[in-house]
Every structure is written in structure tokens, then in C-alpha cells.
């Protein structure tokens, strides 16, 4: 019944196998992670000292823009799609994804999108330079010509995300093994199911925003051009109606990963499973009705401002429930601290710090002072990097033995964790101080009082960057020369269907559905 993978490059180009496509997504996202990280290194090198040393302000803006776009759309989102491809069929007892050919397509258009986006760096007038939030009219009337390529790239990424989401929803709703009821699904599957609905809801909104830009730039419309009767603020409303759910699209699957790792290494079932599911759904719902908290200084009416403040503060409740549940899972467990667990614990701590600053940012009057400063930069890197990236890294260490049948080197894994953890905090904790003391974000150069903490932050960033090279080394070393493991269950405390199949996971799994009791 089983046949192995095809030989040569054709295996990867034409594959419809969820494991192959998951692998492709993961390697692609890591490549993008290194590219976006390189842009970040350029930014931090320029900000190492006051004054312009390495690049000009114009190029600095291209770097901040490309860093944000590549990290959000190229690194983090595909990483979690990769994990979903690998793990969702294994976790629900399905033989593959429901729509395997579309799965191939949704991956293979991504490299083209990012090739187009990256090529803008070499174009006359330079790459997009208007920030990853691309506010009009800086991104329309005042944009470099490469903006059209950027718009095309965004459209392709959106199409890829929507196809990926349809596939995940179809798989989860139709291909669960007998007895795998919705409320028995692992949380990673739940969080991805909800994320997929978010993606389908908001990616078309983003597509609408960039299409309106395209019209304004090339076809003489005035959606965002005040001189033609348009409204620049409309852009921000449309963008953040996509943008706020987008941050939950990034973080919800990360919650799912953490909800798998913590019970395993606490050797105790996840505390409050159903409240975790409801909290995820509540966060997803709230994400649609809070978008304008990114726009507290835009000049909304008082009532609008009050509404968005109250609604945003509410998010703290379901998010708090999640954090409390993770802590309660650890409480009275029998814990051990392998690399995935270290990343998961760091996630809980640092994500919670990011949550606190998020709560501070929700208070509209205070946000007047925080808005568009380094305080915001610190906040979203605590949730995006220490949240999504730490969780993704933990996930790789957690499932790598299952994927390739080799065990990573625990000492090297821990070494990477500590360099990343310390480097991350040296980079981003001082940015809270910089923001509170008055340093705006997206500044190519800064006043002298900010010099000391910027230097600290840059040193931390180089350290954090080095940790990622070590991560790459660890993964390759494991695949090439790791100690072989064969038991189906890699971790003593692990539960779930993925740990019932042989290690390494064969090319085809669950050809006959397992029975779930």
C-alpha cells in the first residue's frame, strides 16, 4: 500500500504530501527569517550610535519596511502553516490534507511573491519605504515606483494564505478520525481552525486596501487622496481591520504549540481545556472590533476613542485565562526542562510582559504618549518574537525527532535557548525605556540622550541574530548526524495521535483511520 517519495527535485516541485509541503514551508520561512533578520541587523548597526554611519535615511526606511513585511508575511506566517501541514493530519488521524494539490499551489506561489518583493531592493527609486503598515498617501502619491511590485506580491501572499486556510478548515472539519470529536482535538488544531477563519475573513480586506492603492497610483482614483475628495484615514481603518486580526493570526497557533509543550513536560493534562477553546474563540471575535486602538492619535471623536479603549481592555480577560491555565498546568506537575519546555516557559513569561504593555497601550490617554514610540516596538516584539518565534522554535525542537527520527543535541539546544533568551531581552527590554523617554519609532537617527540604550539594544540584537545561526546549525546537525530514535513516543509525558505513529513518521500515515476513544 505504501509508496515512498519520488526521486530528485520533482519530489519537491510536484509533491502533494502534507509532510513534504510542511517541510517546504518550514525551510522557506527559515530562509525568510534569516533575510528579515539581516535587515534587522542593518537597522541595529545604523542605530548603534547617533549620526548616520552606514546607510542613508532613505535606505533606512526601506530596511524597516522590508524587515516588517518579510518577518510577518514571509517568516512567521509560513512557519505556522508549515507546522499545521505537518501536524494537523497527524494530530487528528487524517491521511493527508483534504486538498493536497491546492496545498502544493499555496506553497509554490510564495517564493515568487517574495522574489518579487525582494527584487524591489534593486530597482530604481528603491524598495518600499513607507513602513510595513504602508499608510497612504506616503505609500501612494509619494511612493517609489516599486510600490506596484509590492502590491502584486501582497496579492500573491494573500491568495496563498486563503488557499492554506481553506485547506486547513476542510481538513479539520472532514478528515478527523472516528471518535475525534471537536472537543477532543488538540489545542494546536483548535487554534489553527480559528486562525484559518480569521485569515479568510481579513486577507480579502488587505487585498482591497492594496487594490485601492493600485487604483490611486495608476488609474487616477482618489480613495486615499484628500485633494481628490478621498480620505487618508480610511486607509488606516481598512488596514487595521486586517492588521489587528493579523496579529492574532500570528499568535493563536503559537498558543496551540505552547498548549502542547507545557503539558508534555509537566506530565500533567492541560488545565482548563474547554476554557482554552472558548478563550481562543473570544480573542478571535474581539480581534474584529478593536482595530482603531492603533489609531488613537488620528483624531477620532471622543465616543469612538472610548469605545475602542473599552473593547481593547476586554482582550486582557481571555488572554489572562490562557496564561493562568498554562501556569495551572505546570502547578503540581512533574516538570523537566528540555529545550522545547525552556522555550515554552520563556514564551509564557515574555508574552505576558508583552500582554502587560499591551494593556498599558490600550489605555487611550496613556497611548497618546506611547503611540509610535519605541515602547510600541518593544511591545510588539515581546509578543511577536518572544511569542510567535519562541513558540515556533520550541515546536521545531519538540517535533523534530518525530519528523526525522533523530534526536537533537540537548546541550546545543539549551545553549541556543539561552543565547536567544538573553539576547532578546537585551535587545528589546531597553526599548521600553527609550520609548517612554521619548524616542519615536522608525527613526534613522536620534538625539544624544538615547545613545546608551540604543547601543545596548544593538549589542543584544547581534547576540539574538547569532542564536539563529546556531539554531540553523542545530537543525542541520540533527538531521545529518543526530542520534537515531525509534520509539513512537519521543517524550515521556507526550499525549496525542502524532505519538502513536512510528518514528520517524513514515511518508504516509493513518491510511486506515485510528480509533479514538
Amino acid at each position, binding site marked *: 500500500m505504501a509508496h515512498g517519495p519520488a526521486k530528485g527535485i520533482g519530489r519537491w516541485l510536484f509533491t502533494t504530501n502534507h509532510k513534504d509541503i510542511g517541510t517546504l514551508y518550514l525551510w522557506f520561512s527559515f530562509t525568510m527569517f534569516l533575510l528579515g533578520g539581516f535587515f534587522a541587523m542593518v537597522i541595529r548597526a545604523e542605530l548603534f550610535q547617533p549620526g548616520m554611519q552606514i546607510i542613508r535615511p532613505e535606505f533606512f526606511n526601506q530596511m524597516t519596511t522590508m524587515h516588517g513585511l518579510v518577518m510577518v508575511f514571509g517568516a512567521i506566517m509560513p512557519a505556522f502553516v508549515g507546522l499545521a501541514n505537518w501536524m494537523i493530519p497527524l494530530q487528528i488521524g487524517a491521511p493527508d490534507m483534504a486538498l493536497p494539490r491546492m496545498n502544493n499551489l499555496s506553497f509554490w506561489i510564495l517564493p515568487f511573491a517574495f522574489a518579487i518583493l525582494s527584487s524591489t531592493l534593486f530597482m530604481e527609486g528603491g524598495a518600499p519605504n513607507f513602513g510595513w503598515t504602508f499608510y497612504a498617501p506616503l505609500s501612494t*502619491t509619494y511612493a517609489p515606483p516599486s510600490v506596484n511590485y509590492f502590491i502584486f506580491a501582497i496579492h500573491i501572499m494573500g491568495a496563498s494564505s486563503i488557499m492554506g486556510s481553506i485547506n486547513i478548515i476542510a481538513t479539520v472539519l472532514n478528515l478527523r478520525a472516528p471518535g475525534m470529536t471537536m472537543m477532543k482535538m488538540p489545542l494546536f488544531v483548535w487554534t489553527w481552525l480559528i486562525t484559518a477563519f480569521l485569515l479568510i475573513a481579513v486577507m480579502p480586506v488587505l487585498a482591497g486596501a492594496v487594490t485601492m492603492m493600485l487604483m490611486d497610483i495608476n488609474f487616477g482614483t482618489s480613495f486615499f487622496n484628500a485633494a481628490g475628495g478621498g480620505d487618508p484615514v480610511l486607509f488606516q481603518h481598512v488596514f487595521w481591520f486586517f492588521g489587528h486580526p493579523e496579529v492574532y493570526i500570528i499568535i493563536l497557533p503559537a498558543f496551540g504549540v505552547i498548549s502542547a509543550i507545557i503539558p508534555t513536560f509537566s506530565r500533567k493534562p492541560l488545565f482548563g481545556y474547554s476554557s482554552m477553546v472558548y478563550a481562543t474563540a473570544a480573542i478571535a471575535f474581539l480581534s474584529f472590533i478593536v482595530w482603531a486602538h492603533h489609531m488613537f*492619535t488620528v483624531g477620532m471623536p471622543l465616543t469612538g476613542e472610548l469605545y475602542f479603549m473599552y473593547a481593547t481592555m476586554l482582550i486582557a480577560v481571555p488572554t489572562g485565562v490562557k496564561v493562568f491555565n498554562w501556569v495551572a*498546568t505546570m502547578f503540581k506537575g512533574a*516538570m523537566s526542562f528540555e529545550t522545547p519546555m525552556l522555550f515554552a516557559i520563556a514564551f509564557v513569561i515574555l508574552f505576558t510582559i508583552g500582554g502587560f504593555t499591551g494593556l498599558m497601550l490600550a489605555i487611550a490617554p496613556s497611548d497618546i*504618549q506611547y503611540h509610535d514610540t519605541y515602547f510600541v516596538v518593544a511591545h510588539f516584539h515581546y509578543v511577536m518574537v518572544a511569542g510567535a518565534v519562541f513558540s515556533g522554535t520550541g515546536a521545531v525542537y519538540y517535533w523534530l525527532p518525530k519528523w526525522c527520527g533523530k534526536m537533537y543535541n540537548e546541550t546545543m539546544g539549551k545553549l541556543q535557548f539561552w543565547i536567544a533568551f538573553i539576547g532578546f531581552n537585551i535587545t528589546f527590554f531597553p526599548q521600553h525605556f527609550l520609548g517612554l523617554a521619548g524616542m519615536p519609532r522608525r527613526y534613522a537617527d536620534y538625539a544624544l540622550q538615547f545613545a546608551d540604550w540604543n547601543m545596548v539594544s544593538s549589542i543584544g540584537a547581534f547576540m539574538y541574530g547569532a542564536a539563529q545561526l546556531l539554531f540553523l546549525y542545530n537543525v542541520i546537525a540533527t538531521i545529518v548526524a543526530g542520534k537515531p530514535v525509534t520509539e513512537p513516543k519521543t517524550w515521556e509525558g507526550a499525549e496525542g495521535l502524532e505519538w502513536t505513529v512510528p518514528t520517524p513518521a513514515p511518508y504516509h500515515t493513518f491510511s486506515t483511520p485510528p480509533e479514538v476513544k
Partner: protein
Amino acid sequence: MLAKAEQLFVRMLAPLLLLPLAANSMAEGGMWSEVINMTPGVTEVSRQIYDLHMIIFWISVVIGVLVFGVMFYSMIAHRKSKGYKAANFHESTTVEIAWTVIPALILIVMAIPATTALINLYDTDDAELDIKVTGYQWKWQYEYLGEDVAFMSELATPESEIYNQGEKGEFYLQEVNEPLVIPVDTKVRFLITAKDVIHSWWMTDFGVKKDAIPGFINETWAKVDKTGIYRGACTELCGQGHAFMPVVVRVVEKAEYQEWIGNKKAEAAAMRELTEKVFTKDELMAKGEEAYNRSCAACHQTNGEGIPGVFPAMKGGVITTGELAGHLDIVVNGKPGTAMQAFGAQLSEVDIAAIITYERNAWGNDMGDVVQPIDVLKFKQGQ
């Protein structure tokens, strides 16, 4: 190895959590510790904001200590290496309701002072002075409404400091050619807008930050209770000069303000007279060089060579060595869809005349023609 790593974990995290506290307590020290927290500022609004900020900070610290406290206790006490046996509980309705309801209550308590502060922040009524603030790439224009006084406020830090050819001054990137001047203890209403892209006018010490949006006029206000010079920034990405358009406000005694505004009005009248005057070519060239370096050189460069592919060269340029009418048109009206702004609204007739004369005769352009301020005025009126 394992135990060692865990110990290290605890040791690294404890100081991290204490960092903000430690930082607060040494707020009187040197530079490192000064740049660490928000300052209370000099208006009622900014103090309200500061108080809110500190309340929510301490609430977060308390919750953080409790949650992380339980977590670290578990990490130390409930570990497999000590032979601890895992319990098997996985839900408790009571506990789960408690940790949903209690945070909700804390949020309600927080929302009350936040609402009060926000209502106050939005109350722009009964202002004694109206100032229109207009954002341009990359400078601010201040207009005293009803006073016929308006001027541009732009970065005074020389390029040589930015590109590390000279020692950086104390107020590097936080100094302007002419600061906004307002009287103390007076409710000033700011009407904020922009001419090109979105900017944001942030005066940190006043607790004022409002986006400057083309086509919209936003309102905000400040009543400052202490004289002095205050320094803020543009906080909305607005292009390559984003970091180079600081906000500087000089708050003075009411009598001093009256004297200052009187002088500004006299200056404005004198400027109107100058528009009628006929200048020599040398006068225009000298004035032109100074004005060019202030308003044009950021893009077209001091040597007139521009940046290839981005900003056109003035040296031997099509327009600067072409028809005079075309030259006047692009300087006065700008070129829509590019970074070239309409300087007609930003610069005086004298400056525009001097700049055009300079551009047509500097760097070997040698067109030989001279533009008088009155020509610029006629050109504007003739449109």
C-alpha cells in the same frame, strides 16, 4: 547540566523582572537612569497621563509577581528530578470563574480614571489662543490665527553633525531655526494638519500628540504651567526626513509673549515691503545660497547634483537652465506625485526669488538672469 540550566534560568529572570523597579529608584542618577520612564510633564493632561501610566504599571507588576511567583515556585518545587509525582487535576470551575471575573473588575476600576482623563484631553473649548500647525516634508509651519504671523520651523542641526564630520551639539536633532512661542498659563488650541503626507505633532511634556493629516484639521490643546524650552518630535513616518523635523516650543511669560508677537507682526510688515524692493544680483545670490541650503539642499544637495534616480540635479538641470516661467512654476507649485513640494505657500517671495536666481547662476549654470520678489508675486497672482 539540567539543574544548572534551571538555576541559571531563575537567576537571569529575577533581575529582569526587577529591572524597571531598580530603574525607577535611581531616577536621580546619570544618563542611563534618566532615560527610563515617562516624565510627568508640564500640563494637567500630561500629569493625568503620567499617573494613569504609573497606576497601570504597578497593577501589572503586582499581577506579574503573583503569576510568575506561582510559576517559579512550581518550577522549583514540582520537578521530576526531585522525584515529584504529577497530580492529575485539569479543571476547576471556581478557580476559572475567579480568574475571569477578577481581571474584569480590575479593568473596570482602571477604565474610570482613563475615561476622565480622556474627556479632559478632548476638551478644546474656551481656548485663548489658536495656532495652526501644518506638517510638511520635513518641517513644521506655525500660524498664529488672527495675528497675521506665520513661520516655518525646521531642523537647525547642520548636516556635518549628522554625517559625523563635526562634534554633535547638546541638542543634536532637537533644535530648530525658530521655535514655536506660546504664553504660560494660557489655554492654547492647536489646529493640526499637513500639506503632503501624514505627520504627527508630539510635544512630550505637554501630553500632546496628534496626527497631522492632509485634508483634515485635528484639534488638541495645552495649558502649560511652567516657562522653558520643550522638545518633541514627529511621530508618524513621513519619508526620509522623518527623524529630522523636531518640534521645539518656547513657553514664555505672558508679557514677553506680547512683546514677541508685536515684533513678529512688525517683521511681517517689513517683509511685505521687501517684496517691493529691487535687489542686486549679488544680494540675491547671497540670500539664495542661504535659502537654498536651508530648503532645497536636503534633496538636491548642496553641490546641486541631486541624487541620481531619486532627486534631479540642479547643476545643468533641464529646468534650472530652461525657461524662467517653468522654473517659477515648479518652485511655486511643486510637482504633484513627487517629493517636490509647492514652496509658494512655504517661502516668502524674497526667498523664492533668491533661490531661483541662485539656482540659475550657481554651479556653472550661468543663465545670467535675475528674478525679483515682485516677479514672483506677479507670477503667483497671475495664476
